[in-house]
């Protein structure tokens, strides 16, 4: 009996315990908001950052403990004389003084001289006449880099500007021009006018010279004898190379992380994995030593450090909080200062303008800004990054956390959107949403997005953006729930009949020229291009597609395909022969201006998303004065669509961030993701001349090159940009249904009516779901 009682009690306790455990899992521990606040703070703190002192009362007057200590960026004024100069080098020289070298440029951006400045007591002192003293007397050269070798000598590398493009390394002499070092290493092969163009040159303690190539670094003795070579990650830029020398080692970036090589044997000592390092895109990663065997890695993500023998990288400076994370500034050099401070040198996009920043540890600053504003998008967008960096500079109390929903390969699945939807349904989710690729219309209809009409009323008063873009995204009731920060504009160039043929599906099918209207491409690109460029004709104002229209569209595409020899996929031999591609171009619009230039098609198409993308089309236009250039039906593709989550707990801050995105400060930057819609930014960009910017393309016996368009042409381009008024946002689900359904017809296995019927049924089902 007693046993039974004990068993019963135990059973009861177990049951009660299980119930309690299950139910407690669903509840929140204490005040939910408080808990969230602490979690945020912990996440925002930099891992392992020194000085993780917990203090109270620092967070907006609350008593919650806050981790203290953060590196703070301050801009160092540059020498007045160097205001218009280009950046050459920054390093600690012989007297442990910071030395800055800048290049003097003429109007055509050619380097005409070099200035040397020494940092003395918070000021710059110029070493006048330095370049005239050290430059070679027998050759006309253009400086590339100056550095202080570990052997205690100064060196500079330069390229000849006459009789070929050959690199030279000079050792600076105290009493005259520099001495040419290992010239044979850079000599061109027979028949060539250029030799090895090293990405970087360094000199070791024993005077050995390390020449960084694109994939290897080769070590030479001072007499020019080659010692050994060491593999490094591929580096395509001729301006920077990630790697540095110590007395005994060469440290560089390899595909799997950071590698240390012995300078005695050239053998690999170890590779330290660098989490998140992408060998293909991290060309800008700058490595330098800490003097104790540890390695620093500086990039747009910030400054990370690993101790000698360690494997864990510690993020010391969060790049997203300062200039390091800005997309319009390129990090050139990062140095360790005399104390526990750092210097970073940046060059503005296009090479104009440089910036020098100092990073010092401030123990009284919260480790992370107390307020976090989250921005969610499906890609790492440069405009958003730029806006986030500037926003944080303007609001030091705010950290803008950029959340990228795409996976590591940059792909977005339905699961990604489902995960976001789950958050949004729970009244959570990011404060600001970048709606490119997201079901923005559904979010708007369901009340997820905030009405931003007041924000844009203010923007239009203070810093206006294109009126027709705002109108295109204003609902009938005046509400504005999303707005593109940038746009891309498809253009067509060709003779009058070809351009007119692009005006309708019938005209397109009826075009009869000696060459096809559109150059050879895949069926999918043709289907996408025609659907996007004739969106209004096909879908009307209400976005519905009639079956008869679908038949007409398919027949037009088939006609185009038959004339230009389009296929579902080209073989390697065909790709080589036709000079085309199997990849799906954005909106199906391939840049075919060079095909028009070669007389292979009646017109050329191009999708302009910045002045740089207009260079080749403009070069083609210059060659063909008979040709015209127009936008296609006045359409444009909205990019960087911004919306604010209705459930945000900080609506004013989110709106402020939206204003930042549309501010001229962000809009004026050419970030390769579309033209700005801000009128002032357009004016600035239009006036912006980049005489040293040029683009070339070609193959075999064809080539074409162009330089930055002159003012008159830039004005015409912006006139064209300002003329577009029809936003096209093709529903990707519908587009996929069309592409899949049209395959049988284009391959000749079904009639246009059969294919259209099948596609129509699918689209009808899709539309019925939303009904």
């Amino acid at each position: 009996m007693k046993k039974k009682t004990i068993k019963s009690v135990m059973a009861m306790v177990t049951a009660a315990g299980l119930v309690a455990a299950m139910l407690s899992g669903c509840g929140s521990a204490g005040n939910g908001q408080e808990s969230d606040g602490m979690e945020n703070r912990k996440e925002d703190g930099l891992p392992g950052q020194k000085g993780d002192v917990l203090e109270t009362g620092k967070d907006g007057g609350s008593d919650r403990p806050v981790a203290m200590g953060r590196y703070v960026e301050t801009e160092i004024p540059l020498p007045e004389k160097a205001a218009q100069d280009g950046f050459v080098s920054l390093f600690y020289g012989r007297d442990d003084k910071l030395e800055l070298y800048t290049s003097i440029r003429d109007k055509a951006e050619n380097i005409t001289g070099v200035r040397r400045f020494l940092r003395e007591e918070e000021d710059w002192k110029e070493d006048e006449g330095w370049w005239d003293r050290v430059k070679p007397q027998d050759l006309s050269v253009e400086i590339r880099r100056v550095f202080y070798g570990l052997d205690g000598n100064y060196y500079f590398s330069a390229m000849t500007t006459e009789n070929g493009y050959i690199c030279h390394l000079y050792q600076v002499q105290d009493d005259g021009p520099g001495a040419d070092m290992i010239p044979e290493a850079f000599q061109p092969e027979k028949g060539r006018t250029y030799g090895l163009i090293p990405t970087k040159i360094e000199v070791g303690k024993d005077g050995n010279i390390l020449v960084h190539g694109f994939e290897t670094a080769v070590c030479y003795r001072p007499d020019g004898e080659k010692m050994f070579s060491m593999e490094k990650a591929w580096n395509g830029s001729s301006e920077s190379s990630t790697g540095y020398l110590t007395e005994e080692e060469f440290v560089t970036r390899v595909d799997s992380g950071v590698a240390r090589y012995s300078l005695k044997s050239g053998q690999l000592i170890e590779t330290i994995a660098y989490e998140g390092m992408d060998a293909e895109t991290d060309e800008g990663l700058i490595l330098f030593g800490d003097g104790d065997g540890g390695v620093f890695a500086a990039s747009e993500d910030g400054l990370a450090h690993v101790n000698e023998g360690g494997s864990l990288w510690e993020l010391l400076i969060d790049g997203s909080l300062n200039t390091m994370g800005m997309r319009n500034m390129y990090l050139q050099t990062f140095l360790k200062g005399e104390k526990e401070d750092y210097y970073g040198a940046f060059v503005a996009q296009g090479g104009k303008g440089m910036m020098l920043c100092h990073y010092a540890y401030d123990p009284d600053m919260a480790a992370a800004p107390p307020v976090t504003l989250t921005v969610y998008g499906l890609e790492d967008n440069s405009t958003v990054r730029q806006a986030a960096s500037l926003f944080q500079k303007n609001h030091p109390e705010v950290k803008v956390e950029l959340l990228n929903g795409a996976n590591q390969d940059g792909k977005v699945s339905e699961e990604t959107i489902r995960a976001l939807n789950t958050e949004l349904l729970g009244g959570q989710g990011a404060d600001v949403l970048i709606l490119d690729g997201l079901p923005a219309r559904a979010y708007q209809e369901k009340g997820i997005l905030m009405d931003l009409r007041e924000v844009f009323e203010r923007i239009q008063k203070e810093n206006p953006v294109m009126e027709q873009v705002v109108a295109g995204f204003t609902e009938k009731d005046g509400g504005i729930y999303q707005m593109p920060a940038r746009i891309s504009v498809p253009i067509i160039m060709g003779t009058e009949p070809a351009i007119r043929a692009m005006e309708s599906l019938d005209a397109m099918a009826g075009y009869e020229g000696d060459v096809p209207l559109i150059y050879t491409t895949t069926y999918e690109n043709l289907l996408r291009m025609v659907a996007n460029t004739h969106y209004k004709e096909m879908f009307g104002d209400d976005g519905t597609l009639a079956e008869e229209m679908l038949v007409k569209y398919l027949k037009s595409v088939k006609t185009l395909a038959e004339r230009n020899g389009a296929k579902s996929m080209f073989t390697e031999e065909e790709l080589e022969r036709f000079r085309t591609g199997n990849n799906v171009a954005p909106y199906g619009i391939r840049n075919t201006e060079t095909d028009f230039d070669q007389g292979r098609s009646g017109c050329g198409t191009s999708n302009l998303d910045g002045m740089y993308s207009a260079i080749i089309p403009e070069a083609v236009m210059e060659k063909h004065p008979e040709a015209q250039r127009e936008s296609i039906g006045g359409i444009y593709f909205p990019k960087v669509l911004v919306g604010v989550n209705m459930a945000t707990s900080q609506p004013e801050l989110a709106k402020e961030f939206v204003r930042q995105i549309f501010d001229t400060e962000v809009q004026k930057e050419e970030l390769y993701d579309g033209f700005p819609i801000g009128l002032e930014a357009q004016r600035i960009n239009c006036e912006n001349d980049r005489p040293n910017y040029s683009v070339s393309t070609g193959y075999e016996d064809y080539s074409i090159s162009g330089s930055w368009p002159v003012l008159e042409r830039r004005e015409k381009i912006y006139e064209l940009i300002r003329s577009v008024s029809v936003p096209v946002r093709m529903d990707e689900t519908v587009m996929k249904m069309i592409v899949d359904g049209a395959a049988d017809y284009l391959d000749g296995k079904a009639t246009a009516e059969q294919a259209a019927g099948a596609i129509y049924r699918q689209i009808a089902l899709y539309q019925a779901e939303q009904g």
Partner: protein
Amino acid sequence: MKRKRRQAWLSVLFLAPSLSGVFVFMILPFVDVVRRSFLDAMGKTFMGTDNYGLVWKNEAFRLASRNTLHFLMTAIPLLFVLSLVLSLLVYRAGKGRRIFKTSLVLPMVIPAAAVVLVWKIFLCMDGILNQVLSGISGEIQNVDWVHGETAFSVLVVTYLWKNIGYDMLLWLAGLSAIPESLYDAARVDGAGGLAQIWYITLPCLQKTMGLVVILSIVNSFRVYREAYLLAGSYPDQTIYMIPHLFGHWFLTLDVQKMSTAAVLLVLAALAAAAVFELLLYGRNKERSR
């Protein structure tokens, strides 16, 4: 009496953990689903019965419901019969019994993604099936088995292939519970094989039948995974099922429609269960007379 009451309390206490789990994770969410079916998408505005009208008239919902029902009515009887036949064959098989059993159960343990890959290799335009047919007919066969009119049959075959082994195991369990003496007696009385099945096996398997039907219906809802992996999120209209619709509604945040459709489906299932129960009740009553 006191003891009985105490035992009843004890049983409730033992059931409490699982019951509370069911309550927290199933009953409460379903109550929320019912609540949301009367609200707008974000659960802020009361919509009355508007959502029910909207979903009931929705063509996509009707198509998905029809297809789901069509699939159940086709695949489950087929599975029921084929698995029973196979189990009888395996039960009576001699040496190869284990091999048969294992090979039939094998599809159950293969991950759906791998299964679908194999099916795709077999059924795609340039797949093995078309090549074999081309070889036999002498003409090039380019039938798109997955995306054309044959999609429904492909899905049924996929479902049968995947689930037949499992159902066979259930039948085998039922068969092994039938005393061998009954068959011996029947044989003595001169009953043949078919007569033994009709008069002994089937009546003795009645309880197993209920279990097989219920588990087959439950498993049939999982066929969406194969349908999705085989033909994408917008497959041929004959295999467009309720989970397809729910998936798309969730992408566009149509939670109110999902909730309403879920309530309607539960009501339909309850109605079917009630009819089933009534029929069973009537039959038992008749027997007891």
